[in-house]
């Protein structure tokens, strides 16, 4: 079976890969490209641990074939920090201990960044609904929600 040649841009870098037709974008990111920050939780689109953006749109990378990424711009958790400089959300999650085991954290950070890009001043309810597709079994969500709201306030003040 010949593999499919796919040309994409990932975290700003032109990237080419070969994949089987069955391979999900998640499989490609982790197993072909070594971008293991994106996690597999459920593999059925329920948990959000595999969240990435594709052409600016938040999606579950487990619910997309690698072959579909042809010509797309993809952003993963690896593209969030600027070099050694953590994104304000990443700093705040550490500062406020908005994580415990950390498996859900990359997906939640990618999803929260996508929210703040669209809505720099979300209400608590808006944050909770936006992140409803990101399951966390440790924190009880409260610290996560507060960290996102706090980051949003900081970023508004800074801009």
């Amino acid at each position: 079976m010949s593999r499919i040649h796919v040309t994409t841009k990932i975290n700003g870098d032109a990237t080419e890969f070969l994949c089987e037709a069955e391979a999900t974008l998640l499989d490609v990111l982790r197993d072909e490209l070594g971008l293991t920050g994106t996690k597999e939780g459920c593999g059925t689109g329920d948990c959000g641990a595999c969240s990435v953006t594709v052409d600016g749109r938040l999606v579950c990378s487990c619910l997309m074939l690698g072959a579909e990424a042809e010509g797309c711009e993809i952003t993963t958790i690896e593209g969030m920090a600027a070099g050694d400089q953590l994104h304000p959300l990443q700093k705040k999650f550490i500062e406020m201990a908005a994580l415990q085991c950390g498996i859900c954290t990359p997906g939640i950070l990618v999803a929260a960044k996508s929210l703040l890009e669209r809505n720099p001043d979300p209400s608590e309810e808006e944050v909770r609904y936006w992140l409803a597709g990101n399951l966390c079994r440790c924190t009880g969500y409260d610290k996560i929600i507060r960290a996102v709201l706090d980051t949003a306030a900081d970023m508004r003040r800074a801009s």
Partner: protein
Amino acid sequence: MRYEAPSSVEDAVATLAGAPGAHVLAGGTDLLVRLRSEMIEPDLIVDIKRIKGMREIAPEAGGWRIGAAVSGAEIGEHEGLRADWPGVVEAAGLIGSTQVQGRATLAGNLCNASPAADSVPAMVAAGAVARIVGPEGTRDLAVIDVPKGPGKTALARGEFIASILLPAKAPRSGDAYLRFIPRTEMDIAVVGCGVSLSLDEEGRVTAARVALGAVGPKVILVDAAAEAIMGRALDEAALSDLAAACSKAATPIDDKRGTVAFRRHVAGVLARRAAVIAGARAKGEQA
């Protein structure tokens, strides 16, 4: 398994015709789950997203033609759709998480043929029409006639939905969709109800379509509910008759998500509440 992404409807139809058992991929939020769980093991996946028009929302005859690969998120951001068919937009927006909204489509929700599909009662109430392409050419089929039962559709082998048309919105009309779930988000409808209605200048109903989901093997268009409110203002008596007609028309089953008695009752409650919202929208009020 092979993956093809044809760039025209003709190529897609020809590719599907040559591969019995091939599956069509648009948003993939149902297909990928079935693929990964090995519920299906197709030889070929045909991705229709590269076909012109599949990702477009275009005005047509006063209404809107929505390409089969337009995502829920794109529908929710479209000002024209939100203004004309807020009930359909809200129903589409209830499907899954933000991540699922980034990919899930109306056509996919329809073709998945779940009795509990949220967008389907809203589309049926709106009088939506699916444009189907296939080896025999192009045909239009009312959305109500697409699902045949759980997981079954009226699509013949080699056919797929290319777009869905939401018709022109009549003057003084409005629509709404409500569902009951035991939580606030990310769940499957226990009962769903779409209502679309038009009012005259005195606020009396001149046209209505009421559709129920999750209370039968497929979506139910409740003609008796529309008749119950025809020519009447949406007062308490009319709404009670509407609710009774919906409870009577529901043919639910008992399962872990709800009992027959509960679902019958909720069908009436949701119809009443959705009619009130649709009525307010028909009067130009925010609802």
